[in-house]
Structures are given as structure tokens and as C-alpha cells.
């Protein structure tokens, strides 16, 4: 349950906030030049995904608000991961008039290829607060290895 509050301090002008935003814009530009960020997004397929890794696993995440977990399908074939499903609109009945309609509904399907080696048998998918997380444990050869330097 969300908290409902009726009184709030007014928003005031915040000069540091503007500086912070400028800095972030520059970070973004830098990241796009460095190839970290796939940008711009136009022409990409829904859902947008973020892929990260730590020493044991890869994580693929996507924002899927309002999609029921049972309407999401995740499948893995060789090094391709498919995220598919449908975002179904709520049934509101007839006596409703819209003031604003920005949320989109429909089917989606996206294939992501992840090179580097993961163990498909151990894949786990979870869904929390509208975020899908797929965890793929790395194959032994994809894990970083510490090499001991021998003293001669």
C-alpha cells in the first residue's frame, strides 16, 4: 500500500540540481562514445534490456510493468535468450472516458545473444516490482581466473 499524504513543502529552485543534471548528461555522452550505452534507442525492440555480470553470473534485466508473470516467456537456445509475452490491458468496462493514454499494450518478443559462455541449465528468471531478472551462471571457461605468479 502506498503512502498518501496531503500536504507537502513547495518545490523550490535548486541550482545544484541543474549542475548535477548537466554532469549526468555529459556522463551519458561519454558512455555512448565509449560504447557502453547502446544509444539512441529508436528502432530497438521492446523490452529494452540491461546486461551486467559479476564473477559468477550474467544478469539480463528488463522493465515490464503491468505484465503478469504468467504472461512472460523466457527461453534459451544455444547462446540466444528470448523474452516474449504480452502486456494485456485491464478490463475497465464500458463507462470509462480517457483523459490521457500513454501506456502501451500488446505483444513483445526480443532475442538477445550473449557470447561468453553460460550454463543454460542453471538459468533462473524472477519478476519483482515489474522488473524481470534472468540470471545465467557463467560456464567455467567464462569465469575470471586468478593466476598465481610463481617465484623462481
Amino acid at each position, binding site marked *: *500500500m*502506498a*503512502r*498518501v*499524504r*496531503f*500536504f507537502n513543502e513547495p*518545490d523550490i529552485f*535548486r541550482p*545544484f*540540481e541543474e549542475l*548535477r*543534471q548537466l554532469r*549526468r548528461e555529459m556522463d551519458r555522452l561519454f*558512455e555512448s562514445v565509449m560504447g*557502453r*550505452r*547502446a544509444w539512441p*534507442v*529508436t528502432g*530497438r*525492440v*521492446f*523490452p*529494452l*534490456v*540491461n*546486461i*551486467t555480470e*559479476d564473477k559468477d553470473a*550474467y*544478469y539480463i*534485466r528488463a*522493465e*515490464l*510493468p*503491468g*505484465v*503478469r*508473470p504468467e504472461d512472460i516467456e523466457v527461453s534459451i537456445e544455444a547462446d540466444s535468450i528470448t523474452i516474449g509475452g*504480452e*502486456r494485456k490491458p485491464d478490463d*475497465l468496462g464500458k463507462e*470509462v472516458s*480517457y*483523459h*490521457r*493514454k500513454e*501506456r*502501451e*499494450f*500488446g*505483444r*513483445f*518478443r526480443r532475442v538477445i545473444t550473449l557470447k561468453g559462455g553460460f550454463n543454460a541449465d542453471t538459468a533462473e528468471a524472477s*519478476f519483482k*516490482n*515489474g*522488473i524481470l*531478472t534472468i540470471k545465467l551462471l557463467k560456464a567455467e571457461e567464462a569465469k575470471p581466473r586468478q593466476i598465481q605468479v610463481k617465484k623462481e
Partner: protein
Amino acid sequence: MSEIRAKEKQEVQRAAESTRNVPVYLPDVDIYETSDALVLVADIPGVSPENVDIDLRDDTLTIRALVDTYGQDERPIMTEYEVGDYYRQFTLGRLIDQSKIEASIKDGVLTLVLPKVEKAKPRKIAVKVA
């Protein structure tokens, strides 16, 4: 059934939060009206129910939602979307019964039911034949 298009999040130009080092985005919303309430539905993926703040003051409705950041200790390989908070304000043109507002969150979607006060409900006016 149509396909959903991918779109980039819209950043709030005059941000509302200054203490958290995350961007602030405008959530996508639907607003519809039934005969006795105004209903607002907003997509706020990544936000836990306890981190949503709804203020209604005079006729201005403010939604603030603080995201649970995740994967901070992981190394990014590909980043297509950014994780941030949500903020949006609306001016309500109708008289709302503030004591009966209901908010609920499910799967990253906030639903706010704003009941109209009695006198704002539509009344049928009979046209008399002269």
C-alpha cells in the same frame, strides 16, 4: 494485437530530488474517468510500494516514486535503459474527495482511485418540453 515499441524514458527537466544520485523520469500514465471517480495508472517499474509518495494539495497531485537501485556491484555489459526515480505532477480539474483516495501497486504499476465529491458527480438534466 499490436506490438509494443521500445521508447526511451523521458527525464524530468526540473528534477524533484536532489539527495539521491539517480536520474528522475516521467512515468507513463493513463488517466480515465468513471461516473464516480478519476483513476490514474502510472508505470513505475522497480519501485517498492513503501517508496511511493502521493501528495494532493489544493488541486495539484504529485507522485514521487523512489526506485530500488539494483545491480550496483555488477559490471555493465550493455545498458539500454537507465534506472531512476519517477516524478510527475497533475492539476486536477475535478473536485476530489481527499479522504477517500485509494492507492495500490502491483507489478510496478501504481493505480490511484480519486473519488469525486458528491456535487461533482454528473447529474442527468431532464430537458423539459415547452
